[in-house]
């Protein structure tokens, strides 16, 4: 889970851990990229606007990684999202975009749907 809002990150972590998942958190894109490169990550949930690397750049960077890491599903969460931003991030290879305030059950459903594929 990549977000500079630590409260939301920790709450999401807590919710995903209830599913029995092991969750890593990063506060910015660079930290996330290092984690992705060094550890087996099955799914990324990333905020769109965050310091260092935006959600869009992170998606592009992950898709440019050598296989199999280039296929890690990415869910983007965003506060103020314009249709253009949404299109750009989906075109870059993100699976879907959720807008804050988050509908947690839908997010959890999406995570469980994407995980077996990963």
């Amino acid at each position, binding site marked *: 889970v990549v977000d500079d*809002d*630590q*409260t*939301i990150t*920790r*709450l999401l972590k*807590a*919710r995903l851990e*209830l599913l029995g998942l092991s969750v890593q958190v990063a506060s910015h894109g660079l930290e996330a990229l290092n984690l992705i490169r060094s550890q087996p990550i099955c799914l990324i949930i990333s905020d769109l606007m965050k310091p260092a690397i935006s959600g869009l750049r992170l998606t592009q960077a992950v898709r440019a990684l050598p296989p199999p890491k280039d296929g890690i599903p990415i869910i983007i969460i965003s506060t103020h999202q314009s249709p253009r931003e949404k299109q750009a991030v989906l075109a870059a290879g993100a699976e879907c975009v959720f807008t*804050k*305030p*988050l*509908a*947690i*059950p839908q997010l959890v459903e999406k995570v469980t749907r994407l995980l077996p594929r990963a």
Partner: protein
Amino acid sequence: VAPFLHLHHTHLLLASALVMTLVTAVAALVSLQWQAAAEQHNRLRIKLFQAWETAIPPFMFGTTSQVPPEILDLPAEAEALLRLFLQQVRSGVQGLEGQRIKTLYHAAGLDRGLAQRLTDPSPKIRALAAIEVGKFHVLDRYPQLVPMLKDPVPYVAHAAATSLCHGRQLPYASQVVLWVLTQPHFEQDSLLPLLERFGPELLYMLSRTLRNPNTHPREWRIYALLAMSHRHAKAFPTLRALLKVPDLELKAACLKALATMGDEDTYPDLVRYARNRDFRLRIQAAKYLGQLGGERAVPILRELMEDRVFELRRQACLSLAELGEPGLAVLEGLVLDPNSDHFARDLAVERLQWLEWRRRS
């Protein structure tokens, strides 16, 4: 006298140096104390936030129905921090989880003193309290937000309006609309998403309460733009009737709304406005002909490509490109025709090149 004066000046210098040193020392001490207090507060905030981040999720995600004891009977300082924490969480989640956060807010008695905070002399406290009302849906405090729309501090009024919109307080919607109308013109459009929160019900209410469009066109401009946001097709007759009002901005807003919602009956109006004396109306018409016109709009847009107003030619060019194949054929014709108006040709070249670049990238 001279030695005395000399002595006097020396004393004066010494005294002022002493005063300066004392002032600097006191300022440094106060600053240090302030820093220490801020650091202590920050440490407390981190400690409490971390504790709540662990304590609250089981209740928030429904694994227990018991309110975490960590949020009960808190000292005043921690209470303010919990209020901030819950507001932050509430901004991030909706649905059942959001409802449970509201439950925690009320269980911890955080609405205590809210009425006083809404009238606090500090604008920051007033604004935070106004946001709190909307975030935690404190029903009995909504009426107190209405006079705050006239608060002399703009961000306090904005916070009150935001909460009334988020709480979908329709009885106060007309006051919020009036507040929006008091804002600078360029800000009114950016406040529309806020008004959209009231839902399409606001349109029914506005159509009954707004004043005469001939004397108050700005009020109806908001109506037209909101009708567009909600894709409210039932507003078509009203919007068509509003096109007859002479106010230019209202006309532009109605044209925008009708064209964006795809009202085919607007086409003759668009053609009429494309030949209007006022170039601003011609620009608007050219813009929406590109959205609504289809192939039938090609001749008039071609005509507008040679209008005396450059901005209008540009808009006509963009609209032709937007029409797809028939419009692009006209632009290609302009490029190939050596006798065509050179401004129109340059615009066509630029647009076609841009489209080609976009196709390739």
